[in-house]
Protein backbone atom coordinates (compact mmCIF):
# COMPACT_ATOMS: atom_id res chain seq x y z
CA UNK A 1 0.00 0.00 0.00
CA UNK A 2 1.34 3.41 -0.91
CA UNK A 3 1.93 5.39 2.29
CA UNK A 4 0.08 8.63 2.96
CA UNK A 5 3.42 10.39 3.29
CA UNK A 6 2.43 12.06 6.55
CA UNK A 7 4.95 14.50 7.97
CA UNK A 8 6.42 13.92 11.45
CA UNK A 9 5.13 16.20 14.18
CA UNK A 10 6.59 17.76 17.29
CA UNK A 11 3.42 16.72 19.13
CA UNK A 12 4.27 13.01 18.81
CA UNK A 13 5.37 10.91 21.78
CA UNK A 14 8.51 8.83 21.40
CA UNK A 15 6.94 5.89 23.20
CA UNK A 16 6.89 2.73 21.06
CA UNK A 17 3.62 2.45 19.13
CA UNK A 18 1.23 -0.44 19.80
CA UNK A 19 1.26 -3.05 17.01
CA UNK A 20 -1.03 -2.34 14.04
CA UNK A 21 -2.63 -5.74 14.54
CA UNK A 22 -3.68 -4.86 18.10
CA UNK A 23 -4.87 -1.33 17.32
CA UNK A 24 -7.09 -2.73 14.58
CA UNK A 25 -8.44 -5.81 16.38
CA UNK A 26 -9.36 -4.45 19.82
CA UNK A 27 -11.95 -1.72 19.37
CA UNK A 28 -14.96 -0.13 20.96
CA UNK A 29 -17.26 0.83 18.09
CA UNK A 30 -20.70 -0.16 19.35
CA UNK A 31 -22.29 0.50 15.94
CA UNK A 32 -20.70 -2.81 14.95
CA UNK A 33 -21.32 -4.67 18.22
CA UNK A 34 -20.31 -4.40 21.86
CA UNK A 35 -17.57 -7.07 21.75
CA UNK A 36 -14.01 -5.83 21.31
CA UNK A 37 -13.58 -8.07 18.25
CA UNK A 38 -16.93 -7.16 16.66
CA UNK A 39 -15.79 -4.00 14.83
CA UNK A 40 -12.86 -5.77 13.13
CA UNK A 41 -15.28 -8.50 12.00
CA UNK A 42 -18.27 -6.37 10.98
CA UNK A 43 -16.96 -2.98 9.84
CA UNK A 44 -16.08 -4.17 6.33
CA UNK A 45 -19.79 -3.62 5.51
CA UNK A 46 -19.39 0.13 5.87
CA UNK A 47 -19.41 2.19 2.66
CA UNK A 48 -16.93 5.04 3.09
CA UNK A 49 -16.86 6.27 -0.50
CA UNK A 50 -18.70 8.50 -1.24
CA UNK A 51 -18.54 10.30 2.10
CA UNK A 52 -19.60 13.79 3.00
CA UNK A 53 -19.63 15.81 6.18
CA UNK A 54 -22.34 18.32 6.95
CA UNK A 55 -20.96 21.38 8.68
CA UNK A 56 -23.63 23.63 10.12
CA UNK A 57 -24.73 25.77 13.02
CA UNK A 58 -22.78 28.89 13.90
CA UNK A 59 -20.41 28.86 10.92
CA UNK A 60 -19.87 31.33 8.13
CA UNK A 61 -19.78 28.78 5.32
CA UNK A 62 -22.18 25.96 6.26
CA UNK A 63 -22.74 23.15 3.83
CA UNK A 64 -22.41 19.49 3.03
CA UNK A 65 -18.81 18.98 2.04
CA UNK A 66 -17.45 16.03 0.12
CA UNK A 67 -14.62 14.40 2.06
CA UNK A 68 -12.25 14.92 -0.88
CA UNK A 69 -12.92 18.65 -0.77
CA UNK A 70 -12.36 18.80 2.98
CA UNK A 71 -8.98 17.12 2.58
CA UNK A 72 -7.89 19.22 -0.38
CA UNK A 73 -4.91 21.30 0.59
CA UNK A 74 -4.47 19.92 4.12
CA UNK A 75 -1.04 18.77 5.19
CA UNK A 76 -1.26 15.35 6.75
CA UNK A 77 0.88 14.85 9.82
CA UNK A 78 1.74 11.76 11.77
CA UNK A 79 0.69 12.23 15.38
CA UNK A 80 1.85 9.45 17.68
CA UNK A 81 -0.45 9.85 20.66
CA UNK A 82 -1.14 7.96 23.84
CA UNK A 83 -4.72 6.69 23.80
CA UNK A 84 -6.48 5.99 27.11
CA UNK A 85 -9.84 4.21 27.17
CA UNK A 86 -12.25 4.91 30.03
CA UNK A 87 -12.13 1.13 30.62
CA UNK A 88 -8.55 1.47 31.93
CA UNK A 89 -6.66 0.11 28.94
CA UNK A 90 -4.38 2.16 26.77
CA UNK A 91 -2.33 2.15 23.59
CA UNK A 92 0.15 4.30 21.66
CA UNK A 93 -1.27 5.08 18.23
CA UNK A 94 0.43 6.62 15.19
CA UNK A 95 -2.50 8.58 13.76
CA UNK A 96 -2.36 10.44 10.49
CA UNK A 97 -4.44 13.59 10.33
CA UNK A 98 -4.65 17.34 10.54
CA UNK A 99 -5.65 19.84 13.17
CA UNK A 100 -9.37 20.33 13.64
CA UNK A 101 -8.77 24.08 13.99
CA UNK A 102 -7.53 24.14 10.35
CA UNK A 103 -10.94 22.96 9.21
CA UNK A 104 -12.85 25.19 11.62
CA UNK A 105 -10.88 28.21 10.42
CA UNK A 106 -11.63 27.33 6.80
CA UNK A 107 -15.38 27.15 7.35
CA UNK A 108 -15.31 30.21 9.59
CA UNK A 109 -16.52 29.98 13.17
CA UNK A 110 -19.08 32.63 14.15
CA UNK A 111 -18.08 34.72 17.17
CA UNK A 112 -21.09 33.43 19.11
CA UNK A 113 -20.03 29.74 18.85
CA UNK A 114 -18.90 28.16 22.12
CA UNK A 115 -19.01 24.43 21.44
CA UNK A 116 -18.51 21.93 18.63
CA UNK A 117 -20.86 18.95 18.27
CA UNK A 118 -20.03 15.84 16.26
CA UNK A 119 -22.17 13.03 14.94
CA UNK A 120 -21.33 9.52 13.70
CA UNK A 121 -22.98 7.92 10.69
CA UNK A 122 -26.14 5.93 11.47
CA UNK A 123 -26.78 3.37 8.75
CA UNK A 124 -28.36 0.27 10.29
CA UNK A 125 -28.09 -1.84 7.14
CA UNK A 126 -24.31 -1.56 7.36
CA UNK A 127 -23.99 -1.23 11.13
CA UNK A 128 -25.48 -4.32 12.80
CA UNK A 129 -24.89 -2.97 16.32
CA UNK A 130 -27.32 -0.10 15.76
CA UNK A 131 -30.25 -2.46 15.26
CA UNK A 132 -30.40 -2.77 19.03
CA UNK A 133 -30.76 0.23 21.30
CA UNK A 134 -27.52 -0.26 23.23
CA UNK A 135 -27.09 3.50 22.97
CA UNK A 136 -29.22 6.39 21.74
CA UNK A 137 -28.10 6.43 18.09
CA UNK A 138 -26.64 8.24 16.26
CA UNK A 139 -23.53 8.45 18.43
CA UNK A 140 -22.82 12.07 19.33
CA UNK A 141 -19.96 13.83 21.07
CA UNK A 142 -18.89 17.36 21.74
CA UNK A 143 -16.07 19.68 22.78
CA UNK A 144 -15.78 23.15 24.10
CA UNK A 145 -14.57 25.45 21.30
CA UNK A 146 -11.18 26.08 22.95
CA UNK A 147 -10.66 22.32 23.27
CA UNK A 148 -11.57 21.89 19.62
CA UNK A 149 -9.15 24.64 18.60
CA UNK A 150 -6.24 23.18 20.58
CA UNK A 151 -3.39 22.03 18.31
CA UNK A 152 -3.43 18.54 19.87
CA UNK A 153 -7.01 17.99 18.67
CA UNK A 154 -6.95 16.39 15.24
CA UNK A 155 -9.20 14.85 12.65
CA UNK A 156 -7.54 11.56 11.73
CA UNK A 157 -7.82 9.91 8.35
CA UNK A 158 -4.98 7.42 8.70
CA UNK A 159 -3.11 5.02 10.92
CA UNK A 160 0.48 3.82 10.51
CA UNK A 161 0.73 6.00 7.38
CA UNK A 162 -2.15 4.13 5.73
CA UNK A 163 -5.82 5.05 5.29
CA UNK A 164 -7.78 4.57 8.51
CA UNK A 165 -9.25 1.05 8.84
CA UNK A 166 -13.03 1.02 9.09
CA UNK A 167 -13.06 -0.43 12.61
CA UNK A 168 -10.98 2.55 13.75
CA UNK A 169 -13.47 5.11 12.44
CA UNK A 170 -12.87 5.50 8.72
CA UNK A 171 -12.88 7.62 6.76
CA UNK A 172 -12.53 10.49 9.25
CA UNK A 173 -12.58 10.61 13.04
CA UNK A 174 -11.75 12.91 15.90
CA UNK A 175 -8.74 12.32 18.18
CA UNK A 176 -8.49 14.22 21.48
CA UNK A 177 -5.54 12.57 23.20
CA UNK A 178 -6.01 13.99 26.71
CA UNK A 179 -9.60 12.71 26.99
CA UNK A 180 -10.98 9.20 27.40
CA UNK A 181 -11.24 7.43 24.07
CA UNK A 182 -15.01 7.63 23.70
CA UNK A 183 -14.76 11.40 23.21
CA UNK A 184 -12.78 10.75 20.01
CA UNK A 185 -15.85 10.12 17.87
CA UNK A 186 -15.54 7.92 14.78
CA UNK A 187 -16.85 8.03 11.19
CA UNK A 188 -18.02 11.63 11.42
CA UNK A 189 -20.88 12.84 9.18
CA UNK A 190 -21.78 16.08 10.91
CA UNK A 191 -20.01 18.89 12.72
CA UNK A 192 -22.16 21.60 14.29
CA UNK A 193 -21.01 24.79 15.96
CA UNK A 194 -23.31 25.78 18.81
CA UNK A 195 -23.56 28.15 21.72
CA UNK A 196 -24.91 25.52 24.13
CA UNK A 197 -23.21 22.42 25.52
CA UNK A 198 -23.95 19.67 22.99
CA UNK A 199 -25.65 16.34 23.57
CA UNK A 200 -23.04 13.62 24.20
CA UNK A 201 -24.17 10.01 23.93
CA UNK A 202 -22.36 8.41 26.86
CA UNK A 203 -22.89 11.45 29.03
CA UNK A 204 -26.65 11.19 28.42
CA UNK A 205 -26.68 7.40 28.85
CA UNK A 206 -25.07 7.66 32.28
CA UNK A 207 -24.20 11.19 33.44
CA UNK A 208 -22.78 9.95 36.75
CA UNK A 209 -20.23 7.73 34.98
CA UNK A 210 -19.37 9.78 31.90
CA UNK A 211 -18.96 13.52 32.24
CA UNK A 212 -19.04 16.04 29.41
CA UNK A 213 -15.33 16.73 29.83
CA UNK A 214 -14.09 13.17 30.46
CA UNK A 215 -10.50 14.29 30.71
CA UNK A 216 -8.12 11.48 31.64
CA UNK A 217 -7.64 11.93 35.38
CA UNK A 218 -6.07 9.33 37.69
CA UNK A 219 -7.50 11.14 40.73
CA UNK A 220 -11.15 10.94 39.71
CA UNK A 221 -12.35 7.35 39.58
CA UNK A 222 -15.08 5.98 37.40
CA UNK A 223 -17.85 5.05 39.88
CA UNK A 224 -17.33 1.39 39.06
CA UNK A 225 -13.56 1.19 38.76
CA UNK A 226 -10.35 2.98 39.60
CA UNK A 227 -8.73 5.22 37.00
CA UNK A 228 -5.40 5.33 38.87
CA UNK A 229 -3.75 2.70 36.69
CA UNK A 230 -4.07 1.33 33.18
CA UNK A 231 -2.80 -1.54 31.09
CA UNK A 232 -1.22 -1.18 27.66
CA UNK A 233 -2.78 -3.52 25.17
CA UNK A 234 -0.48 -5.87 23.30
CA UNK A 235 1.86 -6.48 26.21
CA UNK A 236 0.80 -10.08 26.74
CA UNK A 237 -0.38 -12.18 29.65
CA UNK A 238 2.14 -10.69 32.10
CA UNK A 239 1.64 -7.01 31.30
CA UNK A 240 2.03 -4.79 34.36
CA UNK A 241 -0.37 -2.02 35.19
CA UNK A 242 1.13 1.42 34.74
CA UNK A 243 0.14 4.61 36.53
CA UNK A 244 -2.31 6.76 34.56
CA UNK A 245 -0.99 10.25 33.88
CA UNK A 246 -2.94 13.47 34.47
CA UNK A 247 -4.55 14.53 31.16
CA UNK A 248 -3.01 11.34 29.76
CA UNK A 249 0.44 12.91 29.95
CA UNK A 250 -0.59 16.11 28.10
CA UNK A 251 -0.90 18.17 31.27
CA UNK A 252 1.71 20.72 30.21
CA UNK A 253 -0.17 21.37 26.96
CA UNK A 254 -3.80 21.39 28.11
CA UNK A 255 -4.03 22.05 31.86
CA UNK A 256 -4.45 25.76 31.09
CA UNK A 257 -7.80 25.06 29.40
CA UNK A 258 -9.21 24.06 32.78
CA UNK A 259 -7.56 26.64 35.04
CA UNK A 260 -9.76 27.35 38.04
CA UNK A 261 -12.16 24.50 37.33
CA UNK A 262 -12.91 21.84 39.94
CA UNK A 263 -12.07 18.70 37.97
CA UNK A 264 -13.95 16.54 40.47
CA UNK A 265 -17.10 18.43 39.61
CA UNK A 266 -16.40 18.85 35.90
CA UNK A 267 -15.23 15.26 35.29
Amino acid at each position, binding site marked *: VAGLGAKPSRWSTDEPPTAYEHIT*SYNNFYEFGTGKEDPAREAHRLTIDPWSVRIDGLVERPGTYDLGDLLKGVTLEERIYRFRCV*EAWSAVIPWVGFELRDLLNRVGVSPSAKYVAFETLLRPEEMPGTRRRVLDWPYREGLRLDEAMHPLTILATGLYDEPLPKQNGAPIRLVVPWKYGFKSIKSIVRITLTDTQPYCTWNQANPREYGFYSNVNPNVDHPRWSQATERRIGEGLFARRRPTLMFNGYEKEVAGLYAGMDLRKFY
Partner: protein
Amino acid sequence: MGRIVDLTNRALRRVAPSVLYVLAPLPAGWWLWQGFTGGLGAEPIRALEQRLGEAGLQLLIAVLAVTPLRRYLGLNLLRFRRALALVGFFYICLHLLAWLALDMNLLWGQIFADIARRPYITVGMLGFVLMVPLALTSSDRAIRRLGPAQWRRLHRLAYPAVLLGACHYLLLVKGWQWEPVIYLAATCVLLALRLETGAGGRRRSAQ
Protein backbone atom coordinates in the same frame (compact mmCIF):
# COMPACT_ATOMS: atom_id res chain seq x y z
CA MET B 1 -39.65 -35.64 23.45
CA GLY B 2 -40.19 -38.30 26.10
CA ARG B 3 -38.30 -40.83 23.98
CA ILE B 4 -35.31 -38.52 23.59
CA VAL B 5 -35.26 -37.96 27.35
CA ASP B 6 -35.43 -41.71 28.00
CA LEU B 7 -32.58 -42.40 25.60
CA THR B 8 -30.50 -39.59 27.10
CA ASN B 9 -31.14 -40.83 30.63
CA ARG B 10 -30.17 -44.36 29.61
CA ALA B 11 -27.00 -43.19 27.85
CA LEU B 12 -26.01 -40.96 30.76
CA ARG B 13 -26.39 -43.86 33.18
CA ARG B 14 -23.32 -45.39 31.57
CA VAL B 15 -21.21 -42.23 32.05
CA ALA B 16 -19.24 -41.81 35.26
CA PRO B 17 -19.63 -38.29 36.71
CA SER B 18 -15.89 -38.23 37.31
CA VAL B 19 -15.48 -37.77 33.54
CA LEU B 20 -16.44 -34.13 34.16
CA TYR B 21 -13.43 -33.60 36.41
CA VAL B 22 -11.21 -34.62 33.51
CA LEU B 23 -13.02 -32.90 30.63
CA ALA B 24 -14.28 -29.67 32.15
CA PRO B 25 -10.90 -28.13 33.02
CA LEU B 26 -9.61 -28.65 29.46
CA PRO B 27 -10.93 -25.33 28.09
CA ALA B 28 -9.15 -23.48 30.92
CA GLY B 29 -5.88 -25.15 29.92
CA TRP B 30 -6.51 -24.29 26.28
CA TRP B 31 -7.19 -20.60 27.05
CA LEU B 32 -4.06 -20.39 29.18
CA TRP B 33 -2.05 -21.87 26.31
CA GLN B 34 -3.62 -19.37 23.90
CA GLY B 35 -2.79 -16.57 26.34
CA PHE B 36 0.87 -17.58 26.37
CA THR B 37 1.06 -17.87 22.59
CA GLY B 38 -0.79 -14.69 21.60
CA GLY B 39 -4.07 -16.40 20.66
CA LEU B 40 -6.18 -14.23 22.96
CA GLY B 41 -5.58 -10.97 21.12
CA ALA B 42 -4.51 -7.54 22.30
CA GLU B 43 -5.74 -7.87 25.89
CA PRO B 44 -5.13 -11.51 26.86
CA ILE B 45 -5.52 -10.84 30.59
CA ARG B 46 -9.01 -9.48 30.22
CA ALA B 47 -9.92 -12.16 27.68
CA LEU B 48 -8.76 -14.95 29.99
CA GLU B 49 -10.48 -13.39 33.00
CA GLN B 50 -13.76 -13.03 31.10
CA ARG B 51 -13.71 -16.52 29.63
CA LEU B 52 -13.00 -18.11 33.01
CA GLY B 53 -15.74 -16.10 34.69
CA GLU B 54 -18.28 -16.78 31.98
CA ALA B 55 -17.53 -20.52 31.99
CA GLY B 56 -17.89 -20.58 35.77
CA LEU B 57 -21.24 -18.81 35.58
CA GLN B 58 -22.46 -21.15 32.83
CA LEU B 59 -21.56 -24.22 34.90
CA LEU B 60 -23.24 -22.83 38.00
CA ILE B 61 -26.39 -21.98 36.05
CA ALA B 62 -26.32 -25.55 34.72
CA VAL B 63 -26.23 -26.74 38.35
CA LEU B 64 -29.37 -24.73 39.07
CA ALA B 65 -31.02 -26.29 36.01
CA VAL B 66 -30.58 -29.87 37.23
CA THR B 67 -33.65 -30.01 39.48
CA PRO B 68 -36.08 -28.22 37.10
CA LEU B 69 -34.89 -30.39 34.19
CA ARG B 70 -35.73 -33.49 36.18
CA ARG B 71 -39.03 -32.20 37.43
CA TYR B 72 -40.34 -30.78 34.18
CA LEU B 73 -38.65 -32.91 31.51
CA GLY B 74 -37.72 -36.05 33.41
CA LEU B 75 -34.08 -35.58 32.45
CA ASN B 76 -31.96 -36.99 35.24
CA LEU B 77 -28.63 -35.20 35.70
CA LEU B 78 -28.59 -35.52 39.48
CA ARG B 79 -25.52 -37.76 39.45
CA PHE B 80 -23.57 -35.00 37.70
CA ARG B 81 -24.63 -32.11 39.88
CA ARG B 82 -21.79 -32.25 42.39
CA ALA B 83 -19.15 -32.52 39.65
CA LEU B 84 -20.74 -29.64 37.70
CA ALA B 85 -20.78 -27.49 40.81
CA LEU B 86 -17.20 -28.26 41.78
CA VAL B 87 -15.91 -27.62 38.29
CA GLY B 88 -17.91 -24.38 38.24
CA PHE B 89 -16.30 -23.39 41.54
CA PHE B 90 -12.90 -24.31 40.09
CA TYR B 91 -13.48 -21.90 37.18
CA ILE B 92 -14.58 -19.14 39.54
CA CYS B 93 -11.39 -19.71 41.58
CA LEU B 94 -9.29 -19.40 38.41
CA HIS B 95 -11.25 -16.27 37.45
CA LEU B 96 -10.51 -14.75 40.86
CA LEU B 97 -6.86 -15.79 40.63
CA ALA B 98 -6.53 -14.24 37.16
CA TRP B 99 -7.98 -11.01 38.52
CA LEU B 100 -5.73 -10.93 41.59
CA ALA B 101 -2.46 -11.94 39.97
CA LEU B 102 -2.60 -11.04 36.27
CA ASP B 103 -5.06 -8.14 36.23
CA MET B 104 -4.28 -6.46 39.56
CA ASN B 105 -0.62 -7.59 39.84
CA LEU B 106 -1.32 -8.39 43.52
CA LEU B 107 -1.56 -4.66 44.30
CA TRP B 108 -3.34 -5.42 47.57
CA GLY B 109 -4.08 -1.80 48.39
CA GLN B 110 -6.05 -1.30 45.17
CA ILE B 111 -7.53 -4.81 45.43
CA PHE B 112 -9.05 -4.27 48.88
CA ALA B 113 -10.16 -0.76 47.95
CA ASP B 114 -11.91 -2.19 44.88
CA ILE B 115 -13.58 -4.97 46.86
CA ALA B 116 -14.90 -2.42 49.33
CA ARG B 117 -15.84 0.37 46.91
CA ARG B 118 -16.78 -1.16 43.55
CA PRO B 119 -20.23 -2.72 43.75
CA TYR B 120 -19.58 -5.22 40.94
CA ILE B 121 -16.45 -6.47 42.70
CA THR B 122 -18.13 -6.48 46.11
CA VAL B 123 -21.01 -8.50 44.70
CA GLY B 124 -18.74 -10.93 42.84
CA MET B 125 -16.56 -11.45 45.89
CA LEU B 126 -19.59 -12.05 48.10
CA GLY B 127 -20.80 -14.70 45.65
CA PHE B 128 -17.41 -16.37 45.81
CA VAL B 129 -17.32 -16.31 49.62
CA LEU B 130 -20.77 -17.95 49.77
CA MET B 131 -19.50 -20.79 47.60
CA VAL B 132 -16.50 -21.63 49.79
CA PRO B 133 -18.44 -23.49 52.53
CA LEU B 134 -20.36 -25.34 49.82
CA ALA B 135 -17.18 -26.56 48.18
CA LEU B 136 -15.74 -27.54 51.57
CA THR B 137 -18.83 -29.62 52.43
CA SER B 138 -19.19 -31.31 49.07
CA SER B 139 -17.91 -34.74 50.13
CA ASP B 140 -20.12 -37.67 51.16
CA ARG B 141 -18.43 -37.55 54.55
CA ALA B 142 -19.45 -33.92 55.04
CA ILE B 143 -23.06 -34.78 54.12
CA ARG B 144 -23.04 -37.55 56.72
CA ARG B 145 -21.46 -35.37 59.35
CA LEU B 146 -23.89 -32.48 58.84
CA GLY B 147 -26.92 -34.68 58.30
CA PRO B 148 -28.96 -34.36 55.11
CA ALA B 149 -31.39 -31.73 56.42
CA GLN B 150 -28.73 -29.36 57.67
CA TRP B 151 -26.55 -30.00 54.62
CA ARG B 152 -29.44 -29.12 52.32
CA ARG B 153 -30.16 -25.97 54.26
CA LEU B 154 -26.51 -24.90 54.01
CA HIS B 155 -26.41 -25.62 50.30
CA ARG B 156 -29.28 -23.27 49.61
CA LEU B 157 -26.48 -20.68 49.68
CA ALA B 158 -25.94 -21.74 46.08
CA TYR B 159 -29.01 -19.70 45.08
CA PRO B 160 -27.77 -16.30 46.27
CA ALA B 161 -24.24 -17.20 45.15
CA VAL B 162 -25.24 -17.74 41.50
CA LEU B 163 -27.55 -14.73 41.59
CA LEU B 164 -24.68 -12.57 42.85
CA GLY B 165 -22.45 -13.97 40.10
CA ALA B 166 -24.98 -13.01 37.43
CA CYS B 167 -25.38 -9.51 38.96
CA HIS B 168 -21.59 -9.15 39.04
CA TYR B 169 -21.54 -9.66 35.25
CA LEU B 170 -24.41 -7.23 34.62
CA LEU B 171 -22.80 -4.53 36.77
CA LEU B 172 -19.43 -4.61 35.07
CA VAL B 173 -20.41 -4.00 31.44
CA LYS B 174 -20.95 -0.61 29.82
CA GLY B 175 -24.44 0.10 28.53
CA TRP B 176 -27.16 -2.53 28.09
CA GLN B 177 -25.51 -5.60 26.60
CA TRP B 178 -27.53 -8.73 26.04
CA GLU B 179 -25.20 -11.47 27.35
CA PRO B 180 -25.27 -10.49 31.04
CA VAL B 181 -29.01 -9.79 30.82
CA ILE B 182 -29.60 -13.32 29.48
CA TYR B 183 -27.49 -14.91 32.22
CA LEU B 184 -29.31 -12.96 34.90
CA ALA B 185 -32.71 -13.77 33.39
CA ALA B 186 -31.85 -17.49 33.18
CA THR B 187 -30.73 -17.46 36.81
CA CYS B 188 -33.91 -15.72 37.94
CA VAL B 189 -36.14 -18.14 35.99
CA LEU B 190 -34.34 -21.17 37.44
CA LEU B 191 -34.61 -19.79 40.96
CA ALA B 192 -38.29 -18.93 40.48
CA LEU B 193 -39.02 -22.47 39.27
CA ARG B 194 -37.29 -23.76 42.35
CA LEU B 195 -39.36 -21.65 44.70
CA GLU B 196 -42.44 -23.04 43.01
CA THR B 197 -41.26 -26.65 43.04
CA GLY B 198 -40.20 -26.18 46.67
CA ALA B 199 -43.77 -25.23 47.60
CA GLY B 200 -45.19 -27.92 45.31
CA GLY B 201 -42.88 -30.52 46.82
CA ARG B 202 -44.10 -29.72 50.29
CA ARG B 203 -47.69 -29.88 49.14
CA ARG B 204 -47.07 -33.25 47.55
CA SER B 205 -45.40 -34.69 50.64
CA ALA B 206 -48.30 -33.48 52.76
CA GLN B 207 -50.77 -35.37 50.64
